């Protein structure tokens, strides 16, 4: 892959057309005013309490995710391609999930090796043969997209379990509109604020029965790192935010404990991992689950979004097969690229990668959050050697990808405006139809040269504008 780095704002011949209005504004706005606006943003985020918890940190367990005021702008034509590609991908992933929990057609056809799916730790045998409303498993998908080389988009990861971050997308937009109304007045920036309505509509569409379905958001509790988001979404949708202790199951129906007695719940937008959902069915030591929930789910009296067992489809060992899934289920060509991926379980791919460790990114198959990975070019010889030993010991636990030169976007740093690497996480919703709001969460690696955008590792966020 090419070594050039794609700059979102500037091409060699000057500012790209879709950034022109912003660049002009930047030129004519005094730096003191910009500094004051940045300060205002920080204070507002603190007061509103948009924080996330960092595990294993004493004292300052609540931190702000740094917010950068330079937006990431996507021209409408690019967005339309992205949108079609994302919808296509999520449709195929839902069909895949339905298939592997029913007929296993894709395995029988030999497109994906059977043991890769059925032997996967994320595969939930309990789900085999069970029907879910509309055949939808991944109601909310947070698909991580990056841009590399000459500006091509690549899907890096499909997050199909409990993807987070959408509250930052919404709060970042609110902040930008408050700080810079003049930028919104003069440009056609497509709105994202209807995301909660869209989410609620999708959740209602998958309710078990036709009558007025009661939706609730299930959170692990106030100490969860994404608690702010859980509360935020519940409030924006106007539904209850419940914890495991607020629910109980009777005759396979799920009820909330309310001040007026028990009240039925039909759809749970759950932000609790599979393992902790029901101590009777999964981990018995779960203190945040609801005993009997899985039985109610099997009985079709409550819908869980996302479904149980979606993790098998976003596993990094399954990821290389997504383009094949699209061809298999939809008989379409994939619109979005996958990143070329070496599977280290295959001896020849392993030996190639061990020779080229210095150029590659190696990831744990089940890892997440930017942990358990090696960024070859940035690592020291000693780090590479240590990682090499871990790979050789258990090659099937790893995949490798070329180090993508992620695109950069100008970002305010201590030494002024400078390019920093970014990615993009749009949120794809599936209910009656597959839909998404124009935009997503842009994450930015604030350290110079860093490719790791995860908030747990010093990443920040930006507002994402799709310009019509």
């Amino acid at each position, binding site marked *: 892959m090419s070594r050039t780095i794609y700059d979102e704002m500037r091409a060699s011949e000057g500012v790209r057309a879709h950034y022109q209005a912003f660049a002009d504004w930047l030129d004519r706005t005094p730096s003191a005013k910009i500094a004051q606006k940045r300060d205002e943003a920080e204070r507002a985020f*603190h*007061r*509103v*309490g948009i924080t996330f918890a960092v595990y294993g940190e004493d004292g300052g367990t609540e931190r702000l995710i740094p917010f950068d005021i330079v937006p990431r702008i996507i021209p409408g034509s690019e967005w339309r391609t992205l949108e079609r590609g994302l919808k296509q991908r999520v449709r195929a992933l839902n069909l895949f999930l339905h298939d592997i929990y029913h007929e296993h057609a894709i395995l029988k056809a030999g497109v994906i090796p059977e043991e890769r799916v059925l032997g996967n730790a994320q595969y939930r045998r309990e789900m085999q043969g069970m029907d879910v409303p509309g055949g939808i498993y991944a109601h909310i998908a947070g698909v991580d997209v990056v841009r590399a080389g000459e500006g091509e988009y690549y899907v890096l990861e499909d997050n199909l379990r409990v993807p987070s971050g959408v509250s930052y997308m919404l709060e970042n937009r609110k902040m930008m509109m408050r700080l810079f109304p003049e930028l919104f007045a003069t440009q056609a920036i497509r709105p994202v604020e209807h995301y909660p309505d869209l989410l609620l509509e999708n959740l209602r569409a998958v309710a078990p029965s036709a009558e007025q379905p009661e939706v609730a958001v299930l959170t692990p*509790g*106030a100490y969860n790192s994404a*608690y702010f988001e859980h*509360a*935020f979404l*519940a*409030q924006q949708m106007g539904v*209850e*935010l*419940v*914890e495991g*202790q*607020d629910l109980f199951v009777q005759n396979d129906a799920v009820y*909330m*404990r*309310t*001040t*007026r*007695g*028990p009240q039925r719940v039909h759809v749970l937008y759950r932000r609790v991992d599979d393992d902790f959902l029901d101590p009777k069915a999964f981990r018995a030591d779960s203190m945040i689950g609801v005993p009997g929930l899985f039985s109610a789910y099997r009985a079709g009296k409550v819908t869980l979004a996302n479904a149980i067992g979606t993790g098998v489809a976003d596993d990094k060992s399954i990821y290389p097969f997504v383009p094949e899934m699209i061809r298999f289920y939809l008989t379409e060509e994939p619109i979005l690229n996958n990143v070329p991926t070496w599977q280290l379980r295959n001896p020849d791919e392993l030996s190639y990668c061990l020779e080229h460790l210095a150029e590659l990114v190696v990831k744990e198959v089940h890892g997440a959050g930017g942990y358990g990975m090696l960024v070859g070019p940035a690592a020291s010889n000693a780090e590479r050697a240590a990682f090499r030993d871990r790979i050789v010991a258990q090659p099937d636990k790893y995949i490798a990808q070329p180090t993508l030169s992620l695109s950069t976007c100008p970002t305010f740093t201590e030494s002024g405006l400078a390019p920093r690497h970014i990615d993009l996480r749009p949120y794809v919703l599936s209910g009656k139809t597959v839909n998404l709001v124009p935009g997503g969460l842009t994450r930015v690696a604030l350290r110079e040269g860093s490719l790791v955008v995860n908030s747990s590792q010093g990443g920040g966020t930006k507002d994402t504008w799709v310009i019509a």
Partner: protein
Amino acid sequence: MLCRTANELYWMARHIERAENTARLLDVTYRMSLLPYELIEPGLAWAEPWAVPLITSGLATEFYQRFQQLSAENVLRFMTLDAGTPSSIYCCLRAARESARSVRGAITSEMYEDLNSSWLEVRVQDYDRIQAHGVSEFLEWVKMRSHLFRGVTFGTMLRDEAYHFIRLGTHVERADNTARILDVKYHTLLPSAADVGGAVDYYQWGALLRSLSGFESYRKIYSDVITPRRVAELLILREDMPRSLHSCMNFIHETLEVLCDANSKEIERAAGELHAGLHYGRTDDIIALGLHEYLMEFLDRISALSGEINRHFLVPTY
């Protein structure tokens, strides 16, 4: 509404109110401690007023486990910024903010932001700074933050069930705390029995009135010298005094009428009974029974009522 949500809202309101009343209790103690005891009997009583807030809030045992000596500084440290004293101002604000955080969907964002600001401010306070600026300034700040929160609540919140549970928590706590602050005078020593009705006695009642924001109202209503009988009337029986027991019970009774349904008639009845006692009560009877005895009985009954509210609405056992 979820029982857990109702519980958090109720305790959020109680903790804010408790922070305010702890400030009031310390304020009256501070004022009383400035009165001239040592002039009359040096060495005996100067520290005595500082035992009173510990007694009325039931914290004396805990205090002596932690501190060797009763002193203004130790009591103030213990009840303002101490992270280990459950009803210190610091802990109350922390608990209120934690409750708000866990149910922030049920309150307005203005309310959460206000409470969060109070917490962020108290978190960086330290005792030496408070001391340097004067304790009164800090206590004043606590009261103002509580007023502000109530104002934000009143001004921004939908009059839904959540609002009613907040109002219920505020007034249950206030009724309890007003009774405790009124009882301060009972525990506060006078230089000698001969001083009953004397100047120090008069100033003590004045300090107590001030700490319950009742001094100016007293002047307006009675335009006369301060007598214990009138203080009792003002802060127990008058329903137009926002911190009086009667006024608190008006709110509690009214709110419970909205919250109760066919399954919770007993709570409504118990609140009605307690309310009627204040509505139709006579100052003479209170004085005849003894103010302290009357207040102790009231505290028992309000605590029983709050137990019922707990069992029925907040932590049900079905």
